[in-house]
């Protein structure tokens, strides 16, 4: 766990949003991801958490270049993905795959499970014979816990958990080095959720995968991640090793998120101090000045409105973007 595979630097993804204008159309930039930087090492899992609409999924897709990036760099195995195009991009992508949130929607309803899993092989290794492809697909299905006898079934004949396993098998068939998991367990039942998370961790061990694990479920992220990145309105709030973040969150936003995770013991749950967030997420079209979190922050002062906080290093593995992180929480 030493080599840095993925280096994201000051990544920005802005979407033009039409806000009026009869013919010409007036546009405003929606800053879905604004200045995100992180490194990912081989075999490491980085959890990305935040509320709905904070740019988690956009970040995941931008890393794969499924979305055009506005500025910044995504350096993958030494090559800047944001500068690649066409065949070069396709070649680079072979090593990075994605698992989606909605298990059924991410599978083509008119294709059999076997063909869905085989598709990346068709695209990247057209030289493979049918027998070879069939063998690899069967092997991969066994590995993700599906019976090879289900090869010729169609997605609607599977349960949600099985569909997600097909999605994982499709992502794994090329033996990639990085998998972006875009809320892979959010649409699943709790009982299935644990199985899929454990499957991902097993695969990570077996193949030495790196993962970007996007989720709003802090308990799951704690279970699977080595480090955690907290996003709010497309900006980084806190980036830290797992233990440090969950033991001593420094950013008021992280504190609120973590205190909202229920403890499965009613007495402890009632006794624990809660940090509640007031208000709603502001419109990403008109984010607050300075620190974007200040409108909901209990520590906000006048400086927060003027100056966007810079990265402050707490220790080697813990960075926070807040002016007031030193002040103890009440």
């Amino acid at each position, binding site marked *: 766990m030493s080599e840095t595979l993925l280096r994201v630097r000051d990544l920005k993804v802005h979407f033009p949003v039409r806000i009026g204008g009869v013919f010409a159309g007036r546009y405003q930039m929606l800053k879905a991801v604004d200045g995100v930087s992180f490194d990912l090492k081989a075999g490491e899992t980085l959890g990305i958490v935040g509320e709905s609409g904070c740019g988690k999924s956009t970040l995941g897709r931008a890393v794969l270049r499924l979305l055009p990036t506005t500025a910044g760099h995504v350096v993958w195995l030494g090559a800047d993905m944001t500068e690649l195009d066409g065949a070069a991009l396709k070649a680079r992508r072979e090593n990075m795959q*994605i698992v989606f949130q909605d298990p059924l929607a991410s599978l083509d309803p008119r294709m059999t499970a076997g063909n869905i899993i085989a598709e*990346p092989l068709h695209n990247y290794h057209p030289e493979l014979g049918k027998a070879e492809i069939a063998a690899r697909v069967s092997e991969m299905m066994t590995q993700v816990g599906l019976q090879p006898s289900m090869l*010729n079934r169609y997605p609607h004949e599977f349960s949600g958990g099985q569909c997600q396993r097909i999605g994982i098998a499709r992502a794994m068939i090329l033996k990639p080095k990085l998998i972006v998991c875009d809320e892979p367990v959010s649409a699943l039942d709790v009982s299935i959720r644990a199985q899929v998370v454990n499957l991902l961790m097993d695969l990570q061990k077996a193949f030495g995968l790196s993962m970007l694990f996007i989720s709003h479920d802090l308990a799951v992220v704690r279970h699977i991640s080595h480090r955690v990145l907290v996003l709010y309105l497309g900006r980084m709030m806190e980036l830290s090793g797992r233990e440090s973040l969950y033991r001593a969150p420094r950013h008021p936003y992280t504190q609120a998120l973590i205190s909202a995770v229920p403890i499965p013991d009613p007495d402890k749950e009632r006794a624990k101090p809660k940090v509640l967030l007031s208000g709603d997420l502001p419109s990403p079209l008109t984010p607050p000045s300075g620190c974007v979190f200040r409108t909901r922050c209990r520590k906000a002062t006048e400086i927060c409105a003027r100056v966007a906080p810079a990265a402050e290093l707490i220790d080697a593995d813990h960075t926070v973007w807040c002016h007031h992180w030193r002040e103890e929480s009440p």
Partner: protein
Amino acid sequence: MSDVIFEGQPAGRSLWQDAWHRLSANKAAVVSLVILIVIALVSIFGPYFLPWRYDEIDWNHVEALPPNFALGHYLGTDTVGRDLLARTLMGGRVSLTVGLLATSVALIIGITVGSIAGFVGARVDQALMRFVDIMYVVPFTFLVIILMVMFGRNFVLMFIAIGAVEWLTMARIVRGQTLTLKHKEFIDAARASGGSTTNIILRHIIPNVLGVVIVYVTLTIPQVILFESFLSFLGLGVQEPMTSWGVLINEGAAELEINPRTLIVPAAFMTITLFCFNFLGDGLRDALDPNDR
């Protein structure tokens, strides 16, 4: 790129098979399908078994003869003594051919234009769809008359004229469907797994729009047959002695008071065909409706 059939494993039931099961449970659709097949077969092979050819005049009876089995005029003759059944079957060949071919032309152009416009989007979409809008404005009848004047009456020209108009709606429908599919996650997944644009359109978009398109095809064929008969009615369709249902109905309408039989026979064939296509289209729409899945 061919599909991999994984041999030795139990087969699943595809959405197409599901739709087929639902369709076969729909009596009206099945009956319509059978009738359509019978009409098509009779139109194709029937003329070979009749004693009279469609353009052959019975010189002993140059008049509208009532049905006469002894002479082999099973449904009588028209005013110049040609066998009405032979002519109706021949007209059926022409009408059905026009219907199928013109619809296929519309289908191919419509799917190509619609899926590209919808999937590629942006400027390509704008250019293609504004062209479609412009084509919509051209009055169809004038277009056909101008083409006829320029190139003379011609069977092939009719396909082109009808196909050129029918693909417009097809393209819009396919584009609309493509737009809804484009943002589905499986399209993103296909892109992440290395699929090119062509690959994604051929492998993911088109198979998924086909359901809607097939329904529209079954509703387009009767429309085209009606178009053809409308053109023939105006005298712009096929040329004598070749005939179509539209031509026959036109001739029969002139004889309506003296000889209603010459109108009723081709009109009955055509009406039944149109009804069957509509019932079949209805059944297909119910069978393929993805909402009940």
